[in-house]
């Protein structure tokens, strides 16, 4: 909403307030002013002139030499290039010394050898928004009506004011009008609001003889009223009216339509004028559209209507789309002599649905959608009728034709002073509260420690005590409310166990050289399906209206996005990546959601390129499977789960079948797979154009429950350990973990630890064989072990390997 200060001053005194002060007051009161602009944009020295003569420039085809009278005695000679300039026109003339927007100064000049004492201006050159002007005036100079010569153009076009641009929050639709803004400034300054003149001096003949109105759709229209104005002369509006509409961004059309728009801006009540002679039978009905009904709206579009859309109809057909736009079939034009003027309250949601569905928004629909003030239907009607009668020399017939389906009473709210002060944490006295309501124009009665406040219908946003408290707060000033600490019971702040786990992972992994990423939760359907085992056969969840097919389904695993990130980096020559993400995946078994999907927290990892880059003193080390697995082991160690996790060769789709492990966590029902670690399948790798990529994805939910954060201290060993190694050759397919497990089993309680320290394959061992070396540590907590005890345990371990794996001891 754009408000010009000179127009606003019709309704409230702005004396002693600069436009900037008004803007600051309104902003601190809750209506933000986005911009304050001087309407003249720095124009000075431009006056009304009269083109007495036009002759061709002797040396330039496109230029004319004009003799212009600016009321200063001597005529000016001005060279003008506009195609539409002509003798007999009144035009804006920038005289020598004049300033135009942007600080451009007009000087005496010679154009192709002919002297020019100034410039005839176009609307754009004067800083006006010429989009609202007819096309011929956009392309050429601005042609004015007959005016006193020499008058400053700033006066003529009402440019001596400022425009305030309001950024209204959805609740303050009451300020979509000059009166609404005046009431707001009244509340902020304590000044009274002056209502516009709206006395209707009419003809003796009765409206009822010419017009009847009826609401059929009574739930969709609370009040419909109309007046009849006969004998009007349709003509362009006077300049002051055009100026004001243009300042508000509305195109002037004719004196009838312009008045309806003018009064809409004044009251916030949209109005519509019909050509009375094109309304069949002089009867108006407000009803829902019929099945298959059509209407050509004023913008020339043929609209197919639906039965939920409200129309204004005469005896035969629809003549307007209620609250949205009038119909072409009843449009006021140059031949119109009798006018029916409509003012009504249509239901906001009905108008909104219609306007949305047709993609047709208007100044009227914008206001109806937000519910107009029922108390202004008749005053706005009368105001417009009196203005039309005045400007169009018409006569308003006696009486209003109306139908009322619903009446509105002002809301009365009781609020206690204790509640106000307790809610805000500010001591507001009874007098103060009453004064604030008084400034708002709300009547209030003081009771015992409380106020009964009557809220006028123009403030439809106020319906309960807290709404009144907000009015008090914003007018008392948010700045005047102190900052206090919360009193009362204290609460301990903390992280939940899952939050603590996620933070620990982030900290450890970033410390270890990994970078965290956050990906989009939406992905492409084909990418969502890359890892069915990680998606756990969940059905894809599709957005009803995606922004693009690329981002149309919810992710069911994290890896596809992480691969996308790797490709993005590869394209930017970032080849060495160690990335992780902690995020949510969405799983459902429903084709169409009827309940919320399962949201699972997942951890994902991606390594590619060098795990350690080359330097002057070392070669680069390429990331491999064991780097990825090592990250998981680090995580599990941090969570106290090293002993509960095992790895088993696995071949989930999308990963390299020889280089992937299922990660299993011991639980009540045995070891359960909680994720995978492995190398990306070579085919997929090729498709994505990546180097070797090692990835992992884990279910975090399982870890939250199992994580053991307790640290239990054990006394340091007091007796020495005995270290023994075993090196065996076994079949290549024997997992190292199985050898270690067998050793642990066979060596018994004396074995403190076993660790693989070397694995070797080579021709010497023969095809299909490998050598595995294990380091064993034996210890007794309470005494030094004897050589015999160690030898016996160790022999058992060796024997177990020989028996279970046909292991050959290497000497």
């Amino acid at each position, binding site marked *: 909403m754009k408000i010009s200060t000179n127009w606003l001053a019709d309704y409230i005194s702005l004396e002693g307030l600069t436009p900037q002060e008004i803007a600051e007051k309104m902003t*601190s009161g*809750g209506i*933000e002013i986005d911009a304050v602009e001087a309407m003249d944009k720095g124009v000075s020295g431009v006056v009304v002139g009269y083109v007495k003569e036009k002759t061709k420039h002797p040396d330039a085809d496109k230029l004319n030499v004009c003799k212009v009278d600016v009321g200063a005695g001597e005529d000016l000679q001005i060279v003008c290039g506009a195609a539409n300039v002509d003798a007999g026109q009144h035009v804006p003339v920038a005289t020598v010394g004049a300033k135009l927007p942007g600080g451009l100064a007009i000087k005496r000049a010679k154009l192709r050898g002919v002297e020019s004492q100034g410039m005839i201006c176009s609307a754009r050159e004067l800083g006006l928004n010429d989009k609202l002007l007819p096309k011929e005036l956009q392309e050429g100079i601005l042609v004015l009506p007959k005016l006193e010569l020499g008058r400053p153009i700033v006066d003529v076009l009402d440019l001596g004011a400022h425009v305030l641009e309001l950024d209204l*929050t*959805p*609740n303050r639709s009451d300020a979509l009008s000059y009166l609404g803004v005046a009431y707001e400034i009244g509340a902020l300054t304590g000044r009274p609001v002056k209502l516009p003149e709206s006395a209707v001096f009419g003809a003796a003949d009765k409206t009822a003889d010419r017009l009847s109105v009826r609401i059929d759709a009574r739930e969709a229209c609370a009040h419909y009223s109309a007046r009849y104005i006969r004998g009007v002369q349709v003509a362009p509006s006077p300049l002051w009216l055009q100026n004001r509409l243009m300042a508000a961004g509305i195109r002037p059309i004719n004196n009838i339509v312009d008045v309806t728009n003018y009064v809409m801006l004044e009251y916030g009540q949209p109005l519509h004028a019909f050509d009375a002679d094109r309304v069949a039978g002089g009867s108006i009905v407000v009803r829902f559209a019929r099945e298959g009904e059509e209407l050509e709206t004023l913008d020339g579009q043929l609209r197919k209507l639906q039965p939920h859309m409200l129309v204004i109809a005469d005896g035969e057909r629809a003549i307007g789309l209620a609250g949205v736009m009038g119909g072409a079939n009843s449009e006021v034009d140059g031949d119109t002599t009798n006018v029916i003027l409509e003012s009504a309250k249509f239901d906001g949601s009905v108008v*909104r649905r219609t306007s*949305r569905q047709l993609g047709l928004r208007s100044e009227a629909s914008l206001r109806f959608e937000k519910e107009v003030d029922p108390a202004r239907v008749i005053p706005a009607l009368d105001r417009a009728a009196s203005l039309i009668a005045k400007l169009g020399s018409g006569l308003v017939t006696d009486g209003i034709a109306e139908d009322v389906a619903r009446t509105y009473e002002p809301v009365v709210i009781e609020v206690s002073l204790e509640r106000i002060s*307790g*809610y*805000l*944490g*500010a001591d507001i006295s009874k007098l103060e509260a009453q004064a604030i309501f008084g400034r708002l124009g709300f009547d209030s009665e003081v009771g015992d420690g409380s106020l009964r406040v009557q809220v006028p219908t123009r403030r439809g946003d106020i319906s309960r005590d*807290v709404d009144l408290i907000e009015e008090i707060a*914003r007018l008392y000033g*948010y*700045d005047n*409310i*102190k*900052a*206090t600490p*919360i*009193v*009362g*019971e204290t*609460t301990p*702040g*903390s*992280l*939940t166990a899952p939050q603590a786990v996620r*933070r620990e992972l982030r900290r450890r992994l*970033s410390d*270890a*050289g990994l*970078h*965290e*990423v*956050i*990906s*989009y*939760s939406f992905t492409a359907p084909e990418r969502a399906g890359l890892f069915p085992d990680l998606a756990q056969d969940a059905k894809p*969840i599709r*957005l*009803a*209206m*995606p922004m693009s097919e690329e*981002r149309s389904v919810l992710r069911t695993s994290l890896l596809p996005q992480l691969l996308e990130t790797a490709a*993005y*980096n590869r394209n*930017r020559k*970032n080849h060495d*990546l160690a990335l992780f993400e902690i995020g*949510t995946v*969405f799983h459902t078994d429903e084709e*169409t*959601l*009827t309940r*919320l999907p399962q*949201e699972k927290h997942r951890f994902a990892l991606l390594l590619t390129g060098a795990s350690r880059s080359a330097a002057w*003193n070392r070669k680069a080390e390429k990331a491999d499977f064991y780097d990825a697995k090592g990250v998981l082991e680090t995580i599990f160690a941090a969570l106290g789960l090293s002993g509960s996790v095992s790895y088993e060769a696995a071949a989930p789709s999308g990963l390299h079948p020889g280089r992937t492990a299922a990660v299993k966590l011991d639980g009540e029902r045995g070891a359960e797979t909680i994720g995978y670690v492995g190398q990306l399948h070579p085919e997929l790798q090729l498709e994505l154009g990546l180097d070797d990529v090692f990835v992992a994805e884990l279910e975090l939910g399982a870890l939250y429950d199992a994580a053991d954060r307790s640290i239990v201290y054990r006394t340091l060993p007091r007796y020495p350990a005995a270290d023994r190694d075993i090196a065996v050759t076994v079949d290549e397919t024997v997992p190292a973990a199985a050898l270690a497990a067998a050793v642990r089993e066979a060596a018994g309680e004396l074995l403190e630890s076993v660790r693989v320290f070397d694995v070797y394959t080579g021709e010497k061992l023969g095809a299909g064989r490998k050598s595995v070396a294990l380091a064993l540590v034996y210890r007794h907590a309470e005494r030094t072990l004897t050589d015999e005890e160690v030898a016996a345990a160790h022999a058992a371990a060796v024997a177990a390997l020989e028996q279970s794996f046909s292991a050959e001891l290497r000497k």
Partner: protein
Amino acid sequence: MKERLEALQAEALQELQGVAGPQELGELRIKYLGKKGALTEILRGMGALSAEERPAVGEVANRVRGAIEAVIEEKAAVYRRAETELRLRSETIDVTLPGSALPTGAVHPLNKVAQEIEDIFIGLGYTIAEGPEVETDYYNFEALNLPKDHPARDMQDSFYITDEILMRTQTSPVQIRAMKAMNGKSPLKVICPGKVYRRDDDDATHSFQFNQVEGLVVGKGIRMSDLKGTLLQFVQEMFGKQARIRLRPSFFPFTEPSAEVDVTCSQCGGSGCRMCKQTGWLEILGCGMVHPKVLEAGGYDPEEVTGFAFGMGIERIALLKYGIDDIRHFYAGDLRFLSQFERM
């Protein structure tokens, strides 16, 4: 015997004068002082001496041994020093070559900021509540006082999945869930961080996916002045002790009264600069007193308890804090971006 000892000393000292290196020094030590050396050889004759003579000869023998040892020690020390000198010289390296640094990674900047915010509020006695990213229309809108035909509920603006289920457009539904979980008990102090989704074309300042942190306090006698006090404390911990706040009346369906909160510009300190568009203030969050209808939806009696709520965009704070020029960087995962957040 005395004479022989004295002669040995003289001979030894003479020979040690001309010693050529550490190896020869060792050989001389063995020659004179070793188990089979010259001194031992002479002392073997001690047995033939009388008991009166022995102490005197023993004394001479000790003196001779001491004198020879002292010279050997002295020479040995010189050789050791030279050897150390040599070693140090040969082991000298170029200390200006780069060291082998430990690998460094980084927590994502959005999580860094979120954790910082979380920690401030944990210190103020808040817990962290989380909720689903896919929400019901009821929790996301209706319970928050956005009735069915509210313009903010347009299909165009939200990612609906079905008519009743959508991607949450704000973290506020978590507030309702957190209130319900209290079963009417108070006080409740939570913050709710998380991802939210709005149907918006991506550009340098807009992203269809972004993060919010909201806070909620419900209890007996919670006042708007407490909201102001809480926010002031928060911004001073987040942006420094000199930070000030300004509340401007605004509108949110779920709070009444509502306010937008500006904080003094972190770049210029309030004097006006390009970042704050010369106003000296940066808009960083929205807040207000919890609307009675929202308290009711959360299972509270609005006559019994009151509450305040506030919310902010984590991206916005991160953009301001680090001076990042494009919001899309947060989601692209470019290593050159991520690695800029490795500092503490």
